[in-house]
């Protein structure tokens, strides 16, 4: 009985805190100074049409490095807590046409994922979305054939190599004294082409590969036999 009264008091307190925000809310009509600077800098200095991509990779690049670290810590934690015991039971094999169809579909899904993270600066998308789509291609393979073994050494090599190269690209910016993770180290091209906007496609491709292999590891640890 006392529990329910306390919970009701806590929710009432939250509602009283929220009420001023809702009643004083006015819709905005123009952008702030910082957003204008980011949009103009993305068009003139970086030459990348997707402003959200240039904010994530260049202007707020250090936050993206922190997020990649958090995802890596979560993968390590899940892999440590749910250790698999090798029992070696083999269930019934999946029917043949299911395996063939899902392999074909999984290959097409992974090509879609690679397309999304290489064109991250031209259309909506980017490294995180492309990486998640690659991981869902592996999920389809895992769901259709329960006895499939993923080669762990290739996954580990891809993940560590892309992480090291991502930090290495940042350090190159430090060596050339233009700032950590500045994307002017490669030539800026024309506005709207695939090979343009400096090092942004390269950085986003590395992030996409890293996120894809980490999420594949989490899914295989939690779901595989």
């Amino acid at each position, binding site marked *: 009985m006392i529990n329910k009264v306390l919970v009701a008091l806590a*929710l009432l307190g939250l509602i009283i805190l929220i009420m001023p925000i809702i009643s004083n809310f006015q*819709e905005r009509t123009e952008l702030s100074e910082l*957003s204008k600077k980011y949009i103009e800098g993305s068009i003139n200095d970086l030459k990348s049409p*997707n402003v959200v991509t240039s904010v*994530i990779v260049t202007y707020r690049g250090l936050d993206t490095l922190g997020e990649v670290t958090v995802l890596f810590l979560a993968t390590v934690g899940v892999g440590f807590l749910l250790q698999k015991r090798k029992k070696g039971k083999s269930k019934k094999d999946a029917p043949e046409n299911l395996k063939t169809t899902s392999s074909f579909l999984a290959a097409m899904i992974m090509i879609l994922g690679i397309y999304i993270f290489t064109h991250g600066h031209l*259309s*909506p998308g980017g490294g995180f979305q492309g990486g998640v789509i690659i991981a869902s291609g592996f999920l389809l393979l895992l769901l259709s054939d329960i006895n499939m073994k993923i080669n762990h050494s290739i996954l580990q090599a891809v993940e560590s190599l892309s992480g090291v190269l991502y930090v290495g690209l940042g350090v190159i910016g430090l060596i050339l004294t233009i700032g950590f993770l500045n994307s002017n180290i490669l030539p800026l091209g024309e506005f709207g082409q695939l090979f343009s906007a400096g090092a942004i496609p390269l950085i986003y491709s590395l992030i996409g590969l890293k996120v894809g292999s980490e999420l594949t590891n989490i899914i295989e640890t939690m779901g595989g036999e």
Partner: protein
Amino acid sequence: MLYTLILGFALFLAGIFAMLTRKNMMKIILGFSIADTGIHIIIVSLGYLKDKTAPIIDSTIKISEATSSVVDPIPSALVLTAIVIGLATTALMLSFVVMMYKKKKSLSINDYQELKC
């Protein structure tokens, strides 16, 4: 706009209510995920300008007046990071619940009282 702000706050309060009153551990984690989604809706709806379009400069926006015809891009960039971190936290919490179930065979949090003095 105002309606999405109210929707976001309602989802946040529903998630907090689920975390405070449910006894099953999986329902507590589901409440956390609902509250997370509510907060993301609140942050993105603070960056919306009326009758403007998405911040991607393709052939339909003139470059010279780009700053007066797009939505604010900064809250979108913050929420993108937050969604991925929410997934990582939920995966780690679920592996903790599986380990605790292996030890004591019970999903109710009333049975885990060793830390009480």
